């Protein structure tokens, strides 16, 4: 019996190893099969687009995901990955550019770049637009369950309010969590001031000690909000729309103090091995057709101007009912809302270290 057991375990282990090798083993061959290694966020693509691209071009896509910008950064800086295309957010892009980890794109190979709306070009993270093609954009806001709060939420104060003790899910990454506290205190999300960051930390720490937070979560938020497990959470607009499909009581608001808006853009790593394939992939994903399909699936707005304009029509054709324009505006926030929102910019080393220290300190408070 024991032999069978250990044999089974050994088999299972080696199967895992082999599978691991299968994923990472390809990527170099020149006249062999063409491949492109893409790394993005989870639930962030309509996977039928991958097979469509593979059929059209004969290029095999190795699609992998990481949960956060910070994790992507640590994977890249430890040199443990062979990605060609990555899709980081704005502030991480500028950090990667600063550290010379991206390569300039050949925009002649990406004709669909011309379809990107002008307001998503030359943004602060890539002022001359040499390295990036925007992939999706959106806002951060409060998601709340209208049956569990007494009045509509309008302010970030709700995230720190003992009135909602044990009913709040705080977002579990340093930039967003401290960012929310900064906005609530009326500071910029891009402050380098130690005092302001300390004040933001104190706000979060006090709320944590007061038992406001039921949990600190990332994607666990889907299950918890859909099940009515918590009343209030902070998360991204696109994900709210996914949750809404499973729980119609959920509401989304960009609080009156303003919020963060972000762009995730496709970039090619400096040491990418499949540069041509990477350009083809980027061009494909930037096309109007792919953007429409993708937007419909992930509920994050595309930066493709045509896709943005055609989406309501596309929705009606696909589902046979008109698109709720209120939802459309949550997905693709209108310009006046965006003006009240601030994008994250990369912070100098000292501030990043402070963020890390404050975040660790916040974690050990019980």
């Amino acid at each position, binding site marked *: 019996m024991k032999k069978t057991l250990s044999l089974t375990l050994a088999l299972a282990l080696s199967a895992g190893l082999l599978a691991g090798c299968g994923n990472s083993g390809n990527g170099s061959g020149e006249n062999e099969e063409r491949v492109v290694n893409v790394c993005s966020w989870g639930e962030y693509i309509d996977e039928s687009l991958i097979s469509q691209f593979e059929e059209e071009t004969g290029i095999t896509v190795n699609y992998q995901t990481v949960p956060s910008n910070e994790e992507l950064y640590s994977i890249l800086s430890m040199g443990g990955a062979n990605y060609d295309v990555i899709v980081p957010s704005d502030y991480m892009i500028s950090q990667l550019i600063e550290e010379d980890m991206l390569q300039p794109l050949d925009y002649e190979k990406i004709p669909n770049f011309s379809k990107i709306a002008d307001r998503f070009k030359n943004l602060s993270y890539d002022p001359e637009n040499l390295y990036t093609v925007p992939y999706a954009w959106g806002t951060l806001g409060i998601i709340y369950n209208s049956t569990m709060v007494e009045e509509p939420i309008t302010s970030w104060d709700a995230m720190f309010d003992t009135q909602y003790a044990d009913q709040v899910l705080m977002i579990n990454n340093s930039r967003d969590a401290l960012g929310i506290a900064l906005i609530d205190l009326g500071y910029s999300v891009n402050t380098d001031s130690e005092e302001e960051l300390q004040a933001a930390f104190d706000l979060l720490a006090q709320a944590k000690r007061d038992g406001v937070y039921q949990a600190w979560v990332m994607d666990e938020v889907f299950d918890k909000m859909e099940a009515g497990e918590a009343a209030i959470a902070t998360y991204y607009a696109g994900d709210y729309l996914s949750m809404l499909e499973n729980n119609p009581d959920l509401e989304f608001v960009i609080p009156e103090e303003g919020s963060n808006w972000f762009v995730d853009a496709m970039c090619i790593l400096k040491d990418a091995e499949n540069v041509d394939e990477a350009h083809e992939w980027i061009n494909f994903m930037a096309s109007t057709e792919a953007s429409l399909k993708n937007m419909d699936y992930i509920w994050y707005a595309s930066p493709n101007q045509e896709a943005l304009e055609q989406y309501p029509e596309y929705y009606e054709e696909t589902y046979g009912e008109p698109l709720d324009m209120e939802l459309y505006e949550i997905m693709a926030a209108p310009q006046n809302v965006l003006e009240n929102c601030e994008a994250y910019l990369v912070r100098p080393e000292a501030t990043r270290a402070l963020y890390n*220290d404050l975040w660790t300190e916040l974690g050990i408070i019980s």
Partner: protein
Amino acid sequence: MRQNKLSLFAAPYVLWMAVFVVIPILMVVVYAFTSASGGFTLDNFARIGSYAVVFTRSFKLAIIATLICLLIGYPISCFLAREGARFQRVALMLIMLPMWMNFLLRTYAWMSILENTGLLNRFFAAIGLFDLINGIFGTDLEYFKMINTQGAVVLGMVYNFLPFMILPIYSVIVKLDHRLIEAARDLGADSVTVFRRVTLPLSLPGVLSGVTMVFVPAVSTFAISQLLGGGQQLLLGNLIEMQFKGTAYNPQLGSAVALVMMVIVVICMTVMNRFGEGEEQAVVL
């Protein structure tokens, strides 16, 4: 000659250990003693003092989980070892069965069981438990708070690591020489004495490896505390993970924490093994 040939077979394992165990540990040591710019420093260790809370919390929860595993696992092993071979096979299979499923998946499942609106609480509500309690005590209880507590974390540890306690203890007990027990009986020992003087001391090696196999993963877990503790009950594993996987990127500090944890665990294990060896010898004598 023959010995040498056989030792060739050990070569892959030695190589494996060197590449995947020794080198990583050396890297952790190097990281722990360097600063971000690469120079030698003891700063990382100086900072660890402020994480004492996390150390105590981790060790406390891991010790509790290990004790519970032992309390549940030992009787089960004894019971199993006494049953017929067929029953043993089926029971072992059942104990192993959950391990064939992905660990994260199982922990996620516990999340939906323990949640305030989860399966367990809905079940309690359905059988009218809350109405009953509220009726008696005049409270307005709607659910038991189970998720996001230290109890939930311990439960997750016990659930996930219990097989690691049962299997080694069982495999020692099942091989116990029955003649020893019979001899003890012949010499007039009652069953309590037999257990105390014969079975227990002889099963100690199994207990020790069981304790090690439960305690070490429990003290360093991060997934269980994130999912069942709601990210509120930061454990050493979470602290280390944070330093490597981004939310607070500082591999040097992470390595220092990992190293200190490793040293403490090794000390605990050595002390325990000493104690174990002594017992064993006493029995042999």
